[in-house]
């Protein structure tokens, strides 16, 4: 160091440069700490892991054919050979739940992710551009949000079909508006943050600002709301299936199983109703609880503890 930058006087003071740059817990660590304090969220993660394992790994251990109808063993109560009984097609309920859960999860996750990507980008761009374009883009969102989701979904699925890919697109299409709004709101405040000004002053262009500065800082919002939109997607999908506008047989998701099961309610065939219902409720519940905990974690991120 040159003398001019020597900030120490002749007094016995430690040089500021050697001040302990103490390394506090990293942001992720701190987020995780907040998250993990939430016992409920941990339980939710656990349950979700179990459900995912059940649906995706279960079939490796528990073999059952979910395509062969056996009319000689329909609606059997749980017992040997069929731990959860059979359905009206004589198909093993446990095996069917694994398959149904798989589809529900796959569509839910895929749709949630589509929503996240589209929503965050749209929101960040609208917020960044501002002015007329933003106003226009947001009016589009406003009007899309005026449509009750399920009406829109019903229309889309009846028009564009009920295959797995189409359902992913359809559910995905209807679930990004919320994320967009929030991200756009954040983008509006982020774009006037000093660090964006700093970047602009250094000559950065719009794409750099959106991609490097605005989007990364909305990641918390995006992640939190993706979690919620996954829950919503699973919810919407099950509803759609329940009213017969979801996946078509023989691909049944959990909602479709409930559709069938509830027809047998008065017969007391509980095994056709409650097991799939519980799985679907748990999936939605867990994603919601996790989203809630994530929100807490992200919000307290910069809070001094």
């Amino acid at each position, binding site marked *: 160091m040159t003398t001019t930058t020597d900030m120490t006087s002749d007094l016995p003071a430690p040089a500021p440069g050697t001040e302990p740059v103490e390394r506090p817990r990293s942001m992720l660590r701190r987020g995780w700490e907040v998250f993990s304090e939430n016992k409920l969220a941990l339980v939710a993660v656990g349950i979700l892991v179990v459900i995912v394992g059940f649906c995706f790994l279960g079939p490796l251990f528990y073999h059952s054919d979910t395509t062969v109808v056996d009319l000689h063993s329909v609606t059997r109560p749980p017992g040997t050979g069929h731990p959860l009984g059979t359905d009206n097609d004589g198909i093993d309920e446990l095996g069917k739940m694994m398959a149904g859960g798989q589809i529900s999860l796959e569509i839910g996750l895929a749709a949630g992710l589509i929503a996240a990507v589209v929503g965050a980008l749209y929101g960040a761009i609208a917020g960044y551009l501002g002015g007329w374009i933003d106003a226009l883009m947001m009016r589009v969102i406003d009007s899309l949000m005026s449509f009750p989701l399920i009406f829109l979904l019903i229309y889309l699925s009846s028009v564009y079909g009920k295959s797995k890919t189409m359902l992913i697109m359809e559910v995905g299409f209807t679930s990004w508006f919320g994320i967009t709004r929030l991200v756009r709101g954040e983008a509006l405040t982020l774009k006037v943050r000093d660090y964006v000004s700093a970047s602009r002053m250094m000559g950065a262009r719009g794409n750099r600002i959106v991609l490097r500065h605005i989007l990364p800082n909305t990641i918390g919002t995006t992640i939190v709301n993706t979690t919620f939109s996954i829950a919503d997607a699973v919810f919407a999908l099950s509803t759609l299936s329940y009213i017969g506008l979801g996946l078509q047989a023989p691909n049944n998701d959990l909602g479709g199983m409930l559709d069938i099961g509830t027809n047998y309610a008065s017969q007391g065939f509980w095994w056709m109703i409650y097991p799939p219902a519980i799985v679907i409720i748990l999936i*939605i519940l867990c994603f919601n609880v996790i989203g809630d905990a994530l929100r807490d974690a992200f919000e307290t991120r910069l809070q001094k503890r």
Partner: protein
Amino acid sequence: MTAYLIRRLLQSVVTVFMVTVISFGLMQLLPGGPVRAILGSHATPTTIAQLTHQMGLDRPVYVQYWNWLDGLLHGNLGFDYVQERPVSDLLFNALGASAFIVGAALILALLIAVPVGMVQAIKRNSALDHGFTVFSFVAYGIPTFFIGFLIQQWFEDDLKWVSVQNQVSTFGDALSNPEAVVLPIVTLTLTAVAGYSRYMRSGVLDQITQEYVRTAKAKGASSRRTLYAHVLRNALIPMATLIGLSLPNLVGGALIVEYVFNIQGIGLLTTRAAQQNDYSITLAATLLTAVVTAIGSLLADLSYAVLDPRVRLT
């Protein structure tokens, strides 16, 4: 404030306009075009050409849109070629029951959720709070149709508290057959209470940590007074916008309870039409509900403006 009101009004005019544009777009995007969708896959080229001309679909898009919009403004929602009836006939018939259910559920839900959320916030982290939190999470996590199913099972089939055999389709029907609509309303209310009470809870919590609350206490106001005179009002104001935002959800929920409880409202009509690939009804119903919810949010926003003095200057 008038400036705000007018701006908000215009904003929602734009929104409603967009709603029509989107609906029109959806109609245009029907695979094979609207005519084929109406006539079905087996239509012959001549009948297609005929109907295309009859419906004016051979004209430029903006003319079509204009004609269509003009029709809308005159209450003409198109013609349903499956049921061979004007769509508006079908829709307006079914609107009453839905409106009744949504309205009743909204009011009930608020009456329950506001005090519940408040108590939760005040008794934060108490057993009561945790209990309600669990309740709202669960109520939020159970698909509406399943809540409806359970309620039907318990109250109608097992406990036999109500027996619902009436066909309800108009507002008057709903009013004169409370038994027929009580369970659907309870179902819808349950789902709405879950959302509202959480919002109210966090609203109150937000306000409680505000500095003006500290000021009120520094004035010597008791906890009660602080709560009622200061916190509550400020926490309630944002609820107004929430109501607006939640309207589409509520209307969507109504569709499901109508389906489950066989209420001849607009939701059931839509579902049935969709099952029959009767696009004109589905689309018109979707459009109609969107417009109604857009107007609903407008009203909610306006009430927000009336409630919050800060809005008046902007």
